[in-house]
C-alpha cells in the first residue's frame, strides 16, 4: 500500500508540517514508502518534503490532504488525481479576520472552504483534530467526521536542552513573564493582549514582561502591533519571532503563565504545551479553545475587555492557590492527549479510508 500526504505549505516549526512528518514515520512503518508533498516547500525542508509536482504519475492507494488554507493549485491537483483522498481538517480561519488587512489572504481563506466543498465527492474519509473542527467540516457537507488528536510532541519540548537563548530573549525583565506562542495574526488578537499587558504593567505589575513568540505573517498587522507596543512605551515586551525548539522550551520553562487572546483556533497546541510544563493558562472562550483547554484554563468571555484580561493574568501568577489548582488541572488535561497515541489513531483512520 502506498499512502502519501499533501500539505499546502511546509515550513520548520509549523504545527501541521510537524504533524505530517510525525505521521509519515507511522505510515512508512505500516505501509512502506510514504512521502510528504507540498505546494510550497521552505528551503530548510528541501529533500524532506517534496514539491507537489514531484508526486509520481503512478497512482498511490491513498492521498492524505491536510487542510489549513485554500490553495487553488492543490485543489486542482487533487481533483485531477485518480487516488481516493482522505482529508485531515486542521481548520481554515474565517476570512473576516483578514479582510481589513489583506484582501488577498482573505480570498485564499474563503476559497479554501469552497475547495473543500468541491473535493467532497473525492473524499473517502474525513478526520479533524478537534471537535470544533469536526463540526465545521460537517457544516461543509462532510458526514461521519472522526476526531483524532494532533501528533503533539510534548516529549521533545520537555527534553529539549536549555541553550541559554531564552535568557537572552528575557534580558532586562525582572518580574513575572507572560508568554504567548502563535503567529501574529489578526484572529489571534495579539493587539488585545498588548492592551491587556499595558494595563497589567501600568497598574498591577510594573516589572512584568510579555514575550510574543511567533512570526508576523501579515506585514501590515504585525507592524501595527509592534507600533502599538512602541507608542504605549512597553519596554518589557519582546518579539523574538519564530524560535527554534531549545529557545521555545526555555521560554516555556522560564514563563510564569501562558496567555492568549485568540478568537479563533482549530486546536491551539501551545495551550497543551504550556500545560505540559505546568503553566497556568489564560485564554478566551472561542472556537476549539474550551475543548483543548479541557476545563483547566481561565477562560474569559468575548465581552471581557483588556482590564479583565489583565486581572486574570495577575491572578494566575499572584494567587498561589489558584495557580496550583490550575497547574494540576492542566496536567490532567495533558494526560487526556497523551493517553492516546495520535499516530496509531491516524493509522486506524487510514485503514478505514483504504477499506
Amino acid at each position: 500500500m502506498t499512502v502519501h500526504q499533501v500539505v499546502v505549505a511546509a515550513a520548520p516549526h509549523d504545527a501541521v508540517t510537524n504533524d505530517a512528518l510525525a505521521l509519515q514515520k507511522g505510515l512508512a512503518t505500516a505501509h512502506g514508502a510514504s512521502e510528504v508533498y507540498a505546494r510550497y516547500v521552505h528551503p530548510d525542508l528541501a529533500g524532506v518534503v517534496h514539491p507537489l509536482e514531484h508526486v509520481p504519475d503512478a497512482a498511490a492507494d491513498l492521498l492524505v490532504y491536510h487542510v489549513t488554507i485554500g490553495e487553488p493549485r492543490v485543489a486542482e491537483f487533487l481533483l485531477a488525481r485518480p487516488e481516493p483522498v482522505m482529508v485531515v481538517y486542521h481548520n481554515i480561519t474565517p476570512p473576516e479576520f483578514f479582510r481589513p488587512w489583506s484582501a488577498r489572504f482573505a480570498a485564499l481563506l474563503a476559497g479554501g472552504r469552497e475547495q473543500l466543498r468541491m473535493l467532497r465527492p473525492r473524499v473517502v474519509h474525513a478526520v479533524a483534530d478537534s471537535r470544533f473542527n469536526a463540526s465545521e467540516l460537517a457544516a461543509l457537507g462532510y458526514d461521519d467526521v472522526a476526531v483524532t488528536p494532533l501528533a503533539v510532541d510534548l516529549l521533545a519540548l520537555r527534553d529539549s536542552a536549555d541553550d541559554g537563548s531564552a535568557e537572552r530573549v528575557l534580558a532586562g525583565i525582572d518580574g513575572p513573564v507572560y508568554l504567548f506562542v502563535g503567529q501574529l495574526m489578526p484572529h489571534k488578537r495579539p493587539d488585545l493582549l498588548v492592551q491587556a499587558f499595558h494595563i497589567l504593567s501600568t497598574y498591577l505589575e510594573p516589572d512584568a514582561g510579555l514575550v510574543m513568540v511567533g512570526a508576523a505573517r501579515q506585514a501590515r498587522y504585525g507592524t501595527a502591533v509592534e507600533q502599538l507596543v512602541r507608542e504605549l512605551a512597553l519596554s518589557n515586551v519582546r518579539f523574538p519571532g519564530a524560535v527554534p525548539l531549545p529557545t521555545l522550551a526555555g521560554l516555556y520553562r522560564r514563563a510564569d503563565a501562558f496567555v492568549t487572546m485568540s478568537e479563533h483556533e482549530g486546536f491551539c497546541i501551545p495551550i497543551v504545551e504550556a500545560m505540559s510544563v505546568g503553566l497556568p493558562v489564560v485564554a478566551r472562550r472561542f472556537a476549539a479553545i474550551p475543548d483543548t483547554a479541557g476545563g483547566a484554563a481561565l477562560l474569559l468571555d468575548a465581552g471581557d475587555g483588556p482590564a479583565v484580561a489583565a486581572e486574570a493574568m495577575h491572578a494566575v501568577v499572584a494567587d498561589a492557590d489558584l495557580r496550583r489548582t490550575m497547574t494540576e488541572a492542566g496536567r490532567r488535561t495533558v494526560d487526556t492527549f497523551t493517553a492516546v497515541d495520535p499516530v496509531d489513531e491516524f493509522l486506524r483512520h487510514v485503514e478505514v479510508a483504504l477499506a
Partner: protein
Amino acid sequence: MTEPDSPSVEDVAIGDVAVDDVVARLRAKVDERRRAGLYPPGLEEDLDLHFHHIAVRGVRDRLKRLEDAFAEVERRGSALHAARIGTESQRAAGSVVHKAVARLVARQVEGVLTQVREYADAVAEAQRAVVLLASDLESKIDELRDRVLAVDPASPEASQRVLADLLARVDALEAVEARRRVSVWSEGVLAPAPGDEARWAAIAKQRPNEGPVLLAGAQWPAAILDAAGIDWRPLEGDPLVAVDACPPGEAGAVLLAQVFEPLSPRDQIALVARLHAAVAPGGRVVTDLRNPYAVGRGEAAGAASHPAYVSFLFREAGFTPVEVVWDGGGEAGAEAHLLDVVFGARSATVVATRP
C-alpha cells in the same frame, strides 16, 4: 460524527474551582478599581481606538499629508481674485492712482486670473490622480510584503527570481571586473618574475612560422624577442579586444605573456576561441603560465590558469597538438614539487598549434 474523548466544555471547572466564579470575581475587581479611580475613564476604549488609529495611520498618515499639501495648493488657486491686489498707498493720492490703474487694467487682470484658475484646476486634477495612484501603490506594496512573509519565498518561482537577480549581479560584477582588467594592462604593472626571462628566451629560440608574430599582455619580453631577431608587433590593450581585431587566419604566432592569470574563466574560453580564428593554419599560440602552486609569488594564480586546464581549453578550441613545457624540463618528483610550492616558481609554457 464521532464524539471526542476530551473533557466536556459545559463542565467548566478548574479542579474544585468554578471558572465562572473566578472570572466574576475578576470582573468585580476591575469595577472596584474603576470606582476607586485607578483606571481612568474610557481606558479600554482609548486603547482599542489607539490600535485602530495605528492600523490605518501607517498608510493614511502619508496619504493625508499628500492630500493636505494638495488641498492647500487648491485653496490658494481658488482664492485668486483681483480684489486681493492691494491699492492702498502711504503717499498722498497714491491710493487714487492705484485704484485708477486697477480700473484701467481690470479686464486684463481678470483675463490673467481666469487663465491661472484654469491652470490651477488642471493641476488639482493631476494631484487627485497622484493621490489615487499613491493609495493604489501602497496597497500593492502591502500585498507584496505579505507574499514575501507568507509562502512565496519557498516557491520555485521565487527561487528562480532570486537566481535571475544573482546572475544579473554576477554579470554586473564581471563587467566591472572587465573594465578593471583593461586598466591593469594600460598601466603596464606587469613585470617579469624570476625565471620568466629565461623561459621567454627559450620561447624566442623556437623560430615561429611564417606570418606576423604578435605579442599580447605584458610587454617586457619585447627585448628578448628583439635580441632573438624576431620581427614582432604588439597587441596593445585588452588582449580579448586586441585578438578579436586581428584579421582572421593571418597570424603566424601569438605570444601571450601573463595574459591568462587575470582573466575570468568565461573570458579565457572566449580568448582561446578568438585565437583559433586569428591564427593561420600551422600557426601557434605560445602561452606563458606562472607556477600555479607557488604560495610565495604574491599572485592569484589558481586552477583556471593551470597548464593542464589551459591545454584542455586549447584542445577543445581545435588546436592540436598542444604541448606543455615545464621550466627545467620534464615532470618533477614529489620532493621537487614541494620545494616549488614552498620556495619558488615552477612555471610552464603551453604551445598550441592550429592544424
